[in-house]
């Protein structure tokens, strides 16, 4: 896919879906449970999304988070044990999120239908060294959802992932191990430009000489 189309996809997932689905907001469920371990918001164990006759599969996953999971990735500060989750449509996901750092971390899915998940989110937050478990049911459509930690700069510095339902709808940018950084710094050695200039002059000189 061309970068422009991927960017469009990014914006679509980020902005359009949320506002389009807003009309269904009055059906919203607002589930939140808070404990010393953290918080689970918008949990849904039973209500089927539209277009689902039954739960297609029960999937249980454990995801670890912390600075430790960025140790072998240059230029990243935080990370998760897996940055991509794949599941079939209408499946029920139970995520156990284990935070191995001494600070908070989150595992949030965005862009879910608002008639079922108010704010379009499923949200886990684990306090330092704690774990939380939450369950949600995904819609039937092939789509790629954004997963991230919404603490300031945690997504940018490594905690961005994607939830691919069915065949998905393309990869998001900057998902570790999946897709490249959208704004990638050039990382050029200092001598690149002088050497490039030298090469240009050399070629010009040689070609001029050959043409005489």
């Amino acid at each position, binding site marked *: 896919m061309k970068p422009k189309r991927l960017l469009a996809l990014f914006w679509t997932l980020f902005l359009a879906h949320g506002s389009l689905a807003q009309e269904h907001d009055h059906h919203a469920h607002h589930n939140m449970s808070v404990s010393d371990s953290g918080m689970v918001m918008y949990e849904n164990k039973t209500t089927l999304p539209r277009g689902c006759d039954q739960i297609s599969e029960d999937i249980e996953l454990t995801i670890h988070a912390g600075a430790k999971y960025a140790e072998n990735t240059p230029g990243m500060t935080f990370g998760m044990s897996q940055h991509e989750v794949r599941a079939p449509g209408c499946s029920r996901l139970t995520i156990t999120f284990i935070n191995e750092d001494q600070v908070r971390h989150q595992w949030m899915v965005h862009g879910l239908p608002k008639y079922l998940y108010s704010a379009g989110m499923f949200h886990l*937050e684990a306090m330092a060294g704690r774990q939380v478990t939450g369950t949600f049911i995904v819609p039937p459509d092939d789509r790629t959802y954004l997963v991230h930690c919404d603490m300031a700069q945690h997504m940018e510095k490594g905690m961005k992932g994607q939830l691919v339902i069915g065949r998905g709808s393309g990869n998001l940018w900057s998902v570790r191990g999946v897709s490249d950084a959208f704004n990638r710094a050039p990382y050029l050695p200092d001598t690149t430009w002088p050497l490039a200039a030298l090469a240009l002059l050399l070629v010009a000189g040689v070609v001029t000489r050959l043409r005489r």
Partner: protein
Amino acid sequence: MTASRLLLLSGLLILFALPPQWYPQAARVQLSQWFGAAAFRPLPASVDYASAEAEVFCPPDLSGWRNERVIEGLTLPAVAGCVPDNPWSVATAIRGSNNVSADTLSKSGFTSDAVTKGRDLDGDGDPDEIHIRLEVVELNGASAEQPAPVTEYSLAPGIKPGLWVFAPKLAGMATENFESNLARPNLRLPSPTLRVEQGDRVYITLENTHYMPHTLHLHGADHGFVDSTGEGNDGVPITSEMPVMPGGARRYELTPRSSGTMFYHCHVQPHVHVMMGLQGLFIIEENRPDNWLQTINIGAGSVRHPSVAVRENYQQEYDLHYLDLDRELSAEIQRNNDPRLITRAMHREYDITDASSDYFVLNGRSFPYTFRESLIVTEPGQRTKLRVVNGGAKGIALHTHGHKFTVTHKDGSRVPEAARFPQDVVWLGTSQRADLELSSVNDGVSSYGAGIWPYHDHQYQGVTTDGIGPGGNISAIVYRDYLDDAGWPKTLGTSYTPYFTEEFYRKEIPVWEAYAPGQFSDPGSDWRLVLRIALLALGLGLAVAAVLPRRR
């Protein structure tokens, strides 16, 4: 055409096109004597500036945060100013996040361990075991995808420099909601004012949620070099301890024996980290019975619940945190996303010895936003306590219009009565603090009567935002009669419309356009002169063509 004919044609064209105002003075005088003055031609008309859309000066208080509130058995007085702090956050900061109802805690935004209060050790009716948890938050930082900064926070219309702050521990997202890129209201500059009582057993845990190493240094506050376990406790990497790495945490502890207005800041590469905003007021109140303190004052400013000792002498109290920021330093976190590149840019390529300050803030905002949050609202006969810190790289010459104040404390220490005098400018060097007594008794010295009296840094860069004034740290002492119901001052001067536009601070609007449209505006262009220059260029081009040898 032959070269000589071409040359002749170009010469005529040049002679015709050359603007008369470019002729030598002597030639112009001679021509005037022969032909008289040229006919009247009006100067170009002023450019018509379409008035830019202004923000609402004082956003409506939809949640009723300004009203008197009874929360957790505490009566929080009504707030006269426009934008108050969240009253549930205030109540939780007083009672402790471990002592309030789930509903209050949820409305406060704090986590249950954000500010916990334990036993009453001296049996005087208030808790003496205090544990505060602080995170490190980047505002207006780089995004990996979007061009705009993320977790947005504006000092003034359109002014969004990259910032780092210590933040109280808040549950959930950093932004208002998922569709918004704006930082939630409790995430802001400056780092919060912390208030503890003399003799309290205080723990502050720094939870480093940021991508760089940080520490906490309790400037001026009575703390041991090592803590009770023998670990370093001074926050200084080169003498006391290893910095707290990303994802890590460290607990600092102190039992302060002396009271006063102190300071806290990060001590890792302080010339960069402190200047990015990792600094706050640290206040140790005198010990009194039943002294439930507002341990966290988010964004500094009005103290909605002053201590018992302060209430003995004053009707109200304000925390005033001054800071200046360098635009070039702030931009370093917006250029790159890779922490290695940011570290190199900030700590090796950026050179503070060549730096200059561009933004001047009071309690994290510049004028006109200071008028929303940092007005000192008073009425005749009141006494107000102001606790001031200058956290900026430059000194401030704090000046009050219409009042002379008294400096009661300097750097947390009491100024003897004999050394006090009424003054209207106080100089505060970097990291200095002063406690000011501001009286509104109209006696010809303390106060000259009711009104809207600005207070500001009298160094002139301080009243600008990147050189555009009015901006910077200007705020005002406003008497109640001069404040409308929404909390906005009933000013008698110019319209505030231009100041609430991004265009004004982008230097795109003539400064007096609002009240003298056209008179001091930008002039339009002289198109006749433009035409002459075009013909001149044509003539010169032909001349060059005439003298160059012809191709065979």
